[in-house]
Protein backbone atom coordinates (compact mmCIF):
# COMPACT_ATOMS: atom_id res chain seq x y z
CA UNK A 1 0.00 0.00 0.00
CA UNK A 2 2.84 2.35 0.99
CA UNK A 3 4.52 1.59 -2.30
CA UNK A 4 1.36 2.55 -4.14
CA UNK A 5 1.26 5.91 -2.38
CA UNK A 6 4.85 6.54 -3.36
CA UNK A 7 4.05 5.79 -7.01
CA UNK A 8 1.00 8.05 -6.90
CA UNK A 9 3.08 10.85 -5.35
CA UNK A 10 5.70 10.48 -8.01
CA UNK A 11 3.03 10.63 -10.73
CA UNK A 12 1.60 13.80 -9.22
CA UNK A 13 5.04 15.42 -9.15
CA UNK A 14 5.59 14.53 -12.80
CA UNK A 15 2.21 15.96 -13.74
CA UNK A 16 2.83 19.17 -11.81
CA UNK A 17 6.05 19.66 -13.70
CA UNK A 18 4.12 19.39 -16.98
CA UNK A 19 1.52 21.94 -15.92
CA UNK A 20 4.28 24.32 -14.88
CA UNK A 21 5.70 24.10 -18.38
CA UNK A 22 2.33 24.58 -20.07
CA UNK A 23 1.88 28.15 -18.82
CA UNK A 24 1.16 30.51 -21.73
CA UNK A 25 4.25 32.52 -22.54
CA UNK A 26 4.54 35.70 -24.56
CA UNK A 27 7.11 34.14 -26.87
CA UNK A 28 6.63 30.42 -27.52
CA UNK A 29 9.66 28.59 -26.12
CA UNK A 30 11.14 25.98 -28.42
CA UNK A 31 11.56 22.87 -26.29
CA UNK A 32 10.49 19.26 -26.68
CA UNK A 33 7.00 19.72 -25.21
CA UNK A 34 6.26 22.66 -27.53
CA UNK A 35 7.55 21.07 -30.74
CA UNK A 36 5.39 19.53 -33.48
CA UNK A 37 2.28 21.51 -32.66
CA UNK A 38 2.52 20.50 -28.97
CA UNK A 39 1.48 16.92 -29.79
CA UNK A 40 3.63 15.72 -26.87
CA UNK A 41 1.24 17.43 -24.48
CA UNK A 42 -1.38 14.98 -25.77
CA UNK A 43 1.12 12.19 -25.30
CA UNK A 44 1.68 13.24 -21.69
CA UNK A 45 -2.09 13.27 -21.07
CA UNK A 46 -2.53 9.82 -22.62
CA UNK A 47 0.38 8.45 -20.60
CA UNK A 48 -1.06 9.91 -17.38
CA UNK A 49 -4.42 8.23 -18.09
CA UNK A 50 -2.74 4.96 -18.99
CA UNK A 51 -0.52 4.86 -15.91
CA UNK A 52 -3.44 5.85 -13.69
CA UNK A 53 -5.59 3.14 -15.25
CA UNK A 54 -2.93 0.52 -14.67
CA UNK A 55 -2.37 1.61 -11.05
CA UNK A 56 -6.12 1.25 -10.53
CA UNK A 57 -6.38 -2.20 -12.14
CA UNK A 58 -3.26 -3.33 -10.27
CA UNK A 59 -4.64 -2.23 -6.92
CA UNK A 60 -7.94 -3.99 -7.67
CA UNK A 61 -5.99 -7.14 -8.50
CA UNK A 62 -4.13 -6.95 -5.18
CA UNK A 63 -7.32 -6.39 -3.22
CA UNK A 64 -9.01 -9.38 -4.86
CA UNK A 65 -5.92 -11.50 -4.23
CA UNK A 66 -6.08 -10.59 -0.55
CA UNK A 67 -9.77 -11.51 -0.41
CA UNK A 68 -9.04 -14.82 -2.09
CA UNK A 69 -6.43 -15.66 0.54
CA UNK A 70 -8.57 -14.81 3.56
Amino acid sequence: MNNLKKIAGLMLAVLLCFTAQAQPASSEPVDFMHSNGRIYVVMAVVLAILIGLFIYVYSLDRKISKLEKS
Partner: protein
Amino acid sequence: MIRKSWWKLLSFVLLLYTCTYGFLVPVPSPAGVPLQETIRNLFFHFPMWIGMMVCYTVSIVYSVRFLRKPSLVNDIYAKEYAITGTVFGVLGLITGMIWANYQWGKAWSGDPKQNGAAIAILIYFAYFVLRGSLQDESKKARIGAVYNVFAYFMLFPCIWILPRLTESLHPGGRGTEGNPGLNPKDTTNAMRSVMYPAALGWTLLCVWIATLRIRVQLLQEKKLTHE
Protein backbone atom coordinates in the same frame (compact mmCIF):
# COMPACT_ATOMS: atom_id res chain seq x y z
CA MET B 1 0.99 -11.14 -4.30
CA ILE B 2 -0.26 -10.54 -7.81
CA ARG B 3 -1.32 -13.70 -9.55
CA LYS B 4 0.45 -14.96 -12.69
CA SER B 5 1.61 -11.50 -13.46
CA TRP B 6 4.00 -11.70 -16.43
CA TRP B 7 1.36 -11.01 -19.06
CA LYS B 8 -0.08 -8.15 -17.02
CA LEU B 9 3.37 -6.56 -17.00
CA LEU B 10 3.66 -7.28 -20.74
CA SER B 11 0.36 -5.49 -21.30
CA PHE B 12 1.62 -2.45 -19.38
CA VAL B 13 4.91 -2.35 -21.27
CA LEU B 14 3.21 -2.77 -24.66
CA LEU B 15 0.72 -0.01 -23.93
CA LEU B 16 3.45 2.34 -22.68
CA TYR B 17 5.24 1.65 -25.97
CA THR B 18 1.99 2.24 -27.89
CA CYS B 19 1.25 5.53 -26.16
CA THR B 20 4.75 6.91 -26.66
CA TYR B 21 6.00 5.54 -29.96
CA GLY B 22 2.46 5.71 -31.31
CA PHE B 23 2.82 9.50 -31.24
CA LEU B 24 6.40 9.56 -32.50
CA VAL B 25 6.23 7.11 -35.41
CA PRO B 26 6.25 8.85 -38.80
CA VAL B 27 2.95 8.43 -40.65
CA PRO B 28 2.54 8.36 -44.43
CA SER B 29 0.43 10.95 -46.21
CA PRO B 30 -0.46 9.30 -49.54
CA ALA B 31 -2.19 11.39 -52.17
CA GLY B 32 -5.97 11.26 -51.99
CA VAL B 33 -6.06 9.95 -48.42
CA PRO B 34 -6.89 12.92 -46.16
CA LEU B 35 -6.18 11.08 -42.93
CA GLN B 36 -3.15 13.14 -41.87
CA GLU B 37 -2.27 12.51 -38.22
CA THR B 38 -5.61 10.87 -37.42
CA ILE B 39 -4.25 7.60 -38.78
CA ARG B 40 -2.63 7.28 -35.35
CA ASN B 41 -6.12 6.33 -34.12
CA LEU B 42 -5.26 2.96 -35.61
CA PHE B 43 -3.29 2.28 -32.40
CA PHE B 44 -6.28 3.03 -30.17
CA HIS B 45 -9.55 2.56 -32.08
CA PHE B 46 -8.77 -0.69 -33.89
CA PRO B 47 -7.44 -2.60 -30.81
CA MET B 48 -10.78 -1.99 -29.07
CA TRP B 49 -12.44 -4.22 -31.69
CA ILE B 50 -9.72 -6.84 -31.41
CA GLY B 51 -10.19 -6.87 -27.62
CA MET B 52 -13.95 -7.14 -28.08
CA MET B 53 -13.69 -10.06 -30.49
CA VAL B 54 -11.22 -11.93 -28.28
CA CYS B 55 -13.54 -11.50 -25.28
CA TYR B 56 -16.61 -12.65 -27.20
CA THR B 57 -14.69 -15.65 -28.53
CA VAL B 58 -13.61 -16.68 -25.02
CA SER B 59 -17.20 -16.11 -23.89
CA ILE B 60 -18.70 -18.46 -26.49
CA VAL B 61 -16.08 -21.12 -25.70
CA TYR B 62 -17.21 -21.11 -22.07
CA SER B 63 -20.88 -21.10 -23.12
CA VAL B 64 -20.31 -24.21 -25.22
CA ARG B 65 -18.41 -25.78 -22.34
CA PHE B 66 -21.34 -24.96 -20.08
CA LEU B 67 -23.76 -26.66 -22.46
CA ARG B 68 -21.57 -29.75 -22.54
CA LYS B 69 -20.95 -29.80 -18.79
CA PRO B 70 -23.15 -27.43 -16.78
CA SER B 71 -21.14 -25.77 -14.03
CA LEU B 72 -21.44 -22.40 -12.39
CA VAL B 73 -17.79 -21.56 -13.12
CA ASN B 74 -18.29 -21.92 -16.88
CA ASP B 75 -21.33 -19.68 -16.72
CA ILE B 76 -19.49 -16.98 -14.76
CA TYR B 77 -16.62 -17.02 -17.27
CA ALA B 78 -19.02 -16.72 -20.22
CA LYS B 79 -20.97 -13.86 -18.65
CA GLU B 80 -18.00 -11.80 -17.47
CA TYR B 81 -16.12 -12.12 -20.75
CA ALA B 82 -19.26 -11.02 -22.60
CA ILE B 83 -19.55 -7.96 -20.32
CA THR B 84 -15.91 -6.96 -20.81
CA GLY B 85 -16.22 -7.51 -24.57
CA THR B 86 -19.26 -5.24 -24.67
CA VAL B 87 -17.43 -2.51 -22.74
CA PHE B 88 -14.64 -2.61 -25.32
CA GLY B 89 -17.15 -2.69 -28.16
CA VAL B 90 -18.84 0.44 -26.82
CA LEU B 91 -15.41 2.08 -26.50
CA GLY B 92 -14.75 1.11 -30.10
CA LEU B 93 -17.99 2.72 -31.20
CA ILE B 94 -17.31 5.92 -29.24
CA THR B 95 -13.73 6.27 -30.47
CA GLY B 96 -14.96 5.55 -34.00
CA MET B 97 -17.62 8.23 -33.72
CA ILE B 98 -15.09 10.81 -32.54
CA TRP B 99 -12.82 9.92 -35.43
CA ALA B 100 -15.71 9.89 -37.93
CA ASN B 101 -16.89 13.30 -36.77
CA TYR B 102 -13.66 14.85 -38.02
CA GLN B 103 -12.91 12.46 -40.88
CA TRP B 104 -16.29 11.88 -42.50
CA GLY B 105 -18.00 15.06 -41.25
CA LYS B 106 -20.62 13.34 -39.11
CA ALA B 107 -20.36 11.22 -35.99
CA TRP B 108 -22.87 8.75 -37.45
CA SER B 109 -23.21 8.54 -41.18
CA GLY B 110 -24.91 5.15 -41.43
CA ASP B 111 -21.75 3.49 -42.68
CA PRO B 112 -22.41 -0.28 -43.04
CA LYS B 113 -19.65 -1.09 -40.62
CA GLN B 114 -20.91 1.40 -38.03
CA ASN B 115 -24.43 0.04 -38.31
CA GLY B 116 -23.20 -3.55 -38.20
CA ALA B 117 -21.13 -2.95 -35.08
CA ALA B 118 -24.03 -1.18 -33.38
CA ILE B 119 -26.39 -4.07 -34.20
CA ALA B 120 -23.87 -6.60 -32.92
CA ILE B 121 -23.53 -4.75 -29.62
CA LEU B 122 -27.32 -4.46 -29.30
CA ILE B 123 -27.56 -8.25 -29.75
CA TYR B 124 -25.17 -8.62 -26.83
CA PHE B 125 -27.20 -6.13 -24.80
CA ALA B 126 -30.15 -8.46 -25.35
CA TYR B 127 -28.04 -11.25 -23.80
CA PHE B 128 -27.79 -9.27 -20.56
CA VAL B 129 -31.49 -8.37 -20.66
CA LEU B 130 -32.33 -12.04 -21.16
CA ARG B 131 -30.15 -13.11 -18.23
CA GLY B 132 -31.52 -10.37 -16.01
CA SER B 133 -35.11 -11.33 -16.76
CA LEU B 134 -34.76 -14.92 -15.52
CA GLN B 135 -34.95 -15.66 -11.81
CA ASP B 136 -33.98 -19.31 -11.76
CA GLU B 137 -30.17 -19.59 -11.73
CA SER B 138 -29.83 -22.79 -13.72
CA LYS B 139 -32.36 -21.67 -16.32
CA LYS B 140 -30.61 -18.30 -16.57
CA ALA B 141 -27.28 -20.00 -17.22
CA ARG B 142 -28.65 -22.51 -19.74
CA ILE B 143 -30.77 -20.11 -21.81
CA GLY B 144 -28.01 -17.51 -21.58
CA ALA B 145 -25.48 -20.00 -22.96
CA VAL B 146 -27.73 -20.92 -25.89
CA TYR B 147 -28.38 -17.25 -26.65
CA ASN B 148 -24.67 -16.43 -26.39
CA VAL B 149 -23.92 -18.97 -29.13
CA PHE B 150 -26.54 -17.28 -31.31
CA ALA B 151 -25.16 -13.81 -30.53
CA TYR B 152 -21.64 -14.85 -31.50
CA PHE B 153 -22.81 -16.13 -34.85
CA MET B 154 -24.64 -12.86 -35.46
CA LEU B 155 -21.55 -10.83 -34.54
CA PHE B 156 -19.44 -12.04 -37.44
CA PRO B 157 -21.94 -11.40 -40.25
CA CYS B 158 -22.58 -7.97 -38.73
CA ILE B 159 -18.98 -6.78 -38.57
CA TRP B 160 -17.13 -8.96 -41.08
CA ILE B 161 -19.44 -10.09 -43.88
CA LEU B 162 -22.22 -7.53 -44.39
CA PRO B 163 -19.90 -4.45 -44.50
CA ARG B 164 -17.92 -6.16 -47.29
CA LEU B 165 -20.96 -6.50 -49.52
CA THR B 166 -21.50 -2.76 -49.94
CA GLU B 167 -19.36 0.32 -50.29
CA SER B 168 -18.13 1.56 -46.95
CA LEU B 169 -16.58 4.76 -45.72
CA HIS B 170 -14.09 2.56 -43.94
CA PRO B 171 -11.00 1.93 -46.07
CA GLY B 172 -11.41 -0.93 -48.49
CA GLY B 173 -14.91 -2.12 -49.20
CA ARG B 174 -16.17 -3.69 -52.37
CA GLY B 175 -14.21 -3.12 -55.51
CA THR B 176 -11.28 -1.30 -53.97
CA GLU B 177 -9.30 -3.27 -51.41
CA GLY B 178 -11.69 -5.90 -50.15
CA ASN B 179 -10.71 -5.33 -46.55
CA PRO B 180 -13.07 -2.85 -44.91
CA GLY B 181 -10.95 -2.06 -41.90
CA LEU B 182 -7.37 -1.50 -42.87
CA ASN B 183 -6.04 -0.15 -46.08
CA PRO B 184 -2.52 -1.40 -46.79
CA LYS B 185 -1.77 1.84 -48.62
CA ASP B 186 -2.39 3.93 -45.50
CA THR B 187 -0.01 1.98 -43.27
CA THR B 188 3.70 1.39 -43.33
CA ASN B 189 5.88 -1.24 -41.71
CA ALA B 190 6.82 1.29 -39.03
CA MET B 191 3.14 1.76 -38.23
CA ARG B 192 2.55 -1.98 -38.14
CA SER B 193 5.34 -2.23 -35.56
CA VAL B 194 3.06 -0.19 -33.27
CA MET B 195 -0.29 -1.56 -34.44
CA TYR B 196 0.29 -5.22 -33.57
CA PRO B 197 1.82 -4.57 -30.11
CA ALA B 198 -1.06 -2.15 -29.49
CA ALA B 199 -3.64 -4.78 -30.38
CA LEU B 200 -1.91 -7.32 -28.14
CA GLY B 201 -1.48 -4.85 -25.27
CA TRP B 202 -5.10 -3.67 -25.27
CA THR B 203 -6.34 -7.26 -25.58
CA LEU B 204 -4.26 -8.34 -22.58
CA LEU B 205 -5.65 -5.41 -20.58
CA CYS B 206 -9.14 -6.48 -21.63
CA VAL B 207 -8.48 -10.05 -20.46
CA TRP B 208 -7.01 -8.76 -17.19
CA ILE B 209 -10.17 -6.77 -16.44
CA ALA B 210 -12.32 -9.80 -17.34
CA THR B 211 -10.34 -12.06 -14.99
CA LEU B 212 -10.75 -9.52 -12.16
CA ARG B 213 -14.53 -9.55 -12.68
CA ILE B 214 -14.55 -13.36 -12.73
CA ARG B 215 -12.55 -13.59 -9.50
CA VAL B 216 -14.95 -11.21 -7.74
CA GLN B 217 -17.92 -13.30 -8.93
CA LEU B 218 -16.27 -16.53 -7.78
CA LEU B 219 -15.58 -14.97 -4.37
CA GLN B 220 -19.21 -13.91 -4.08
CA GLU B 221 -20.37 -17.41 -4.94
CA LYS B 222 -18.02 -18.87 -2.33
CA LYS B 223 -19.38 -16.45 0.25
CA LEU B 224 -22.99 -17.37 -0.63
CA THR B 225 -22.32 -21.09 -0.28
CA HIS B 226 -20.63 -20.54 3.11
CA GLU B 227 -23.65 -18.68 4.38
